[in-house]
């Protein structure tokens, strides 16, 4: 491993100042479950590492029935699985986090890391996007909010600018029911071949609002608007549900890699979207 400068700021301002000084050229470390692997495998050679673990402003976890949930970037996956607040109001986030990695890694890995790492298969992204979550980004000079659906720009890439940090995620009050289904060869300790999050809000026996968000089938998490539209305003009969699942499968163009062939990923999209919708009924 090569040597690098290491900073441990105690406040958000301090963290952002260091980042600004370095012109954004510092690797952020929180849980370290992604960064350390990449350093060890010589994929990245950071000149500086900014440890944000001691920054209290990144640790929000609060709920307001009007504003919704504020969840800080440093929230660990284990926190997500255990927090009564999350479990009660957003059970899908608790269950999605619980499907990831192992107990040991979940106690280190953070929400912010999972999102900023911007892996197409990140398990937290589809359910959060389905919940219309908003990312709160801060830099020394500004603070801005963007829908999480617009946060990702490609594998490992996001809209984060030099000098910017992901501070927290804001999730609107829960509306309807949300499900996240993950398909992987092993039950645990595995990566999603396909992930599918579905949120369905019904009123008067009809689907009022729908969200279908897929993971691991495109360079970024993929929202399937045509699938959502096929559900909205409809009574969710099995035929309607099958149709939405089919549209979802047709609207993605996944790759073939060592984990799965493209045809199989498409098939799994169809199965998971259908089962996901069924799970919200």
């Amino acid at each position, binding site marked *: 491993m090569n040597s690098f400068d290491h900073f441990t700021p105690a406040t958000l301002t301090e963290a952002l100042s260091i980042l600004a000084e370095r012109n954004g050229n510092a690797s952020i470390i929180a849980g370290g479950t992604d960064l350390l692997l990449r350093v060890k495998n010589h994929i990245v050679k950071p000149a500086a590492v900014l440890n944000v673990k001691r920054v209290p402003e990144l640790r929000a976890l609060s709920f307001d029935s009007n504003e919704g949930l504020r969840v800080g970037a440093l929230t660990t996956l284990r926190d997500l699985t255990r927090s009564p607040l999350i479990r009660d109001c957003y059970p899908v986030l608790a269950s999605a986090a619980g499907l990831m990695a192992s107990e040991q890694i979940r106690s280190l890995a953070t929400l912010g890391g999972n999102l900023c790492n911007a892996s197409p298969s990140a398990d937290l992204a589809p359910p959060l996007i389905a919940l219309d979550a908003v990312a709160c980004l801060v830099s020394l000079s500004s603070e801005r909010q963007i829908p999480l659906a617009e946060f990702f720009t490609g594998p490992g890439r996001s809209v984060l600018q030099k000098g910017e940090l992901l501070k927290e995620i804001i999730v609107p009050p829960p509306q309807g029911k949300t499900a996240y289904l993950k398909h992987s*060869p*092993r039950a*645990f*300790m*595995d990566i999603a071949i396909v992930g599918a999050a579905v949120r369905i809000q019904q009123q008067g026996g009809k689907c009022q609002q729908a969200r279908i968000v897929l993971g691991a089938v495109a360079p970024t998490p993929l929202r399937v608007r045509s699938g959502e539209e096929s559900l909205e305003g409809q009574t969710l009969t099995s035929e309607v549900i099958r149709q939405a699942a089919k549209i979802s499968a047709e609207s993605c163009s996944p790759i073939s890699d060592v984990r*799965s*062939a493209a045809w*199989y990923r498409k*098939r799994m999209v169809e199965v998971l979207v259908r089962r996901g919708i069924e799970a919200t009924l």
Partner: protein
Amino acid sequence: MTDALIGQRVPKLDAPSKAAGKTIYGHDVRLPSMLHGRILYSRYAHAKIIRMDTSRAEKLRGVKCVLTPKDNPPHRFGYGKDNKPFKDIARSLRDEIAGVVATDADIAEEALSLIEVDYELLPNIFSPREALSEGALLIHPEHKSNLFQRYNYSHGDLAQGESESAVVVEEKFLLPYVSHVCMETSVVVAQFDHRDHLTLWSTTQIPFLLQRDLSEALGIPGSNVRIIQTAVGGAFGRGLDIYPYEPIAALMSRKTGQPVRVAFSREEEFLAGPARQPAEVTVRAGAKADGTLTFRDASCMLDIGAYVSWGTVTPLVMMETTASLYQVPHARFTADCVYTNNLITGAMRGYGNPQSTFFIETLMDRLAEALKMDPVNFRIMNANVPNSETPQGLVITSCGLKECLEAVAASADSARMNVYPERSRRNEGGRLVLSEVEGMTVTANIKPSPFNLQPPHIKRGIGFASTLNVGGGARIYRSDGCGATVKVDDFGHVTLVTGSTEIGQGSETALAQIVAQTLGVKIENITVLNSDTDIKPWDVGVHASRTTFIAGNAAYLAAVDARNQIFETAAQLLGVGVDQLSASAGQVTVRDEAGKSISLEQVARRRHFKEGGKVILGEGWYDPPTQLVDKDTYKGNISAAYGFGAQMAEVEVDIETGKVRVLRLACANDVGHAINPMAVEGQIEGGAQMGLGYALTEELIVKDGKVLNPDLLDYRLFTSADMPIIETRIIETDDPGGPFGAKGVGEMGGTPTAAAIANAIYDAVGVRMTQLPMTPERVLAALDEKEKRARV
């Protein structure tokens, strides 16, 4: 002898220290002034090195020296004598072409990137078929052919077998590369002393053969090589060969005059370690209308990679399954072991048997189906029997195959309740009675099955498979022997020095039990030494599930010898005849004379401390009464006993995703006599874990000679969260040749697993899986194929 030590559940003697993290593994070895070596592998799968410039690497601070093919001794080494430490022609992507020694491993690693190499590319051969095609480039020109070896076995008359058959089935199988994935990656520390003697700290399974191999590779006398075995963090056959990194570490130590450590990263372990041979297999088999087997005919093509290892001998075991698992009157087996520019391959737990059992037992299931026979009854009626000889020449002494099948069939009864509740479930006052199974009533307090709540896309099934495995050694070297000594000191403490090696299988504990039982002492009074070629007597190595049988017999003989010496002195001291004595609870007692006894330690002291005194030192050498197979016919009794086993898998298949969940694996094994039932269960469960991975998730994905998934995320081992319920049943048949009736069990646990699961998948959803692993994608493709055929 009625002490209960044999057959007692004794926790492994080495377990507390391992659990506490105090065991010294190879990776823990640190010597004063030790240096670190790293290896540069070829960038191309087949290329001539035409220029190498190491000057920049040599100048890096901390680098001691760089080694290249120029540092090679003139000798070749390895099973096929086709390997050298550093290659000037790379034949695979894992070929070592240079090495760096530095003060730490990171510096050495950095220096590797500073070595400039110019290659002249040669044509690649990545398929055995292409390697055998006419005019194919020779991968080892001195070998004259890319076919390293052809196995050609037969017994009976295949045409007659075929003509007697009422049903004949045929299938093609594809078997993958898999890796041992030892928790401890490969590691070695080498040190030359002032006498130019080499000491090697190693995780090998074959210390004495490695001593010889290294002496050949380095061109030094074998007497100048000492192997010290550290605690081994997993071996599973990986340690059965010499690998280039071992002589490389020695060359590095010699060149620097300091101890050198070479330790693999996990990625390197996947790329440069040996893998189980991938194979393409075509098998035919037939049976008469009454269910009697008529013939089997299997032909295999094995990709052995760029260099030969002991793994090339695995067809011998595949042949054994084909010719001798069940009674087969006519059989033929051929296997071509072919050089390619792919990964090197080697020996791995089961040694060919998981592969052959998968294809043979899949065909057994197809035959039972074609005959409309119960798959268990069909197997039992053809099962091997005690005191018989197979046409291949295997002399079967004890045999519990029928009992194993019956045991897993009993497990299947409760599984059937889940699979076919309407057929076999009847609720009688809260207790479930399974009454539909012929001739058997099993009651169990099982909660009512949630079967009815299963969604329609989940289908359940059960499947069976058996296994035959050598259980009394395997003579693949001219000696299959093991030596042992037993010393009793003047505190009454007993030290067993055995040639055999503890690789996590629990042999240390089983051998201590055998010696303790024979000398009548507590197991706490035994120390086992088994890790230093300068101290321990010769042994061929840990393989073929041979340690309990072979090293057990040697330890027993040494203990009996020591006991005779004890009795000789005790008889004089007590004024009785030797034949009146017995040993128990640390005492030598006179039978039929209550109270007349003397302690073991007293006997030892009285024997030592006198003029003309003697040490109590027993010795034993055991080499089983077996034969090397005939080099032309491959017939002969290779082992002094044979172990048997059967498994029943209960699975759930999701027909929409192709995902298979194993709910339960019942494993019954004929182990002769269980010296330590807890250790036997551990071996079976551990084997099952490997078998489950081979069946469902594990595969080194290799394209153009390159491993595409060299990590523990994409090379999927079965984790504890994936494990089904494992039921283990120990079947005891008391083998006449084994120590206290014991036979080997080490490899059997995972051998029938893939076949049992494949047969269960067929039972559940009606598709025959013929390629491993049976991934969700492959299962779904097979289901699609089945549906397509149904529509036509």
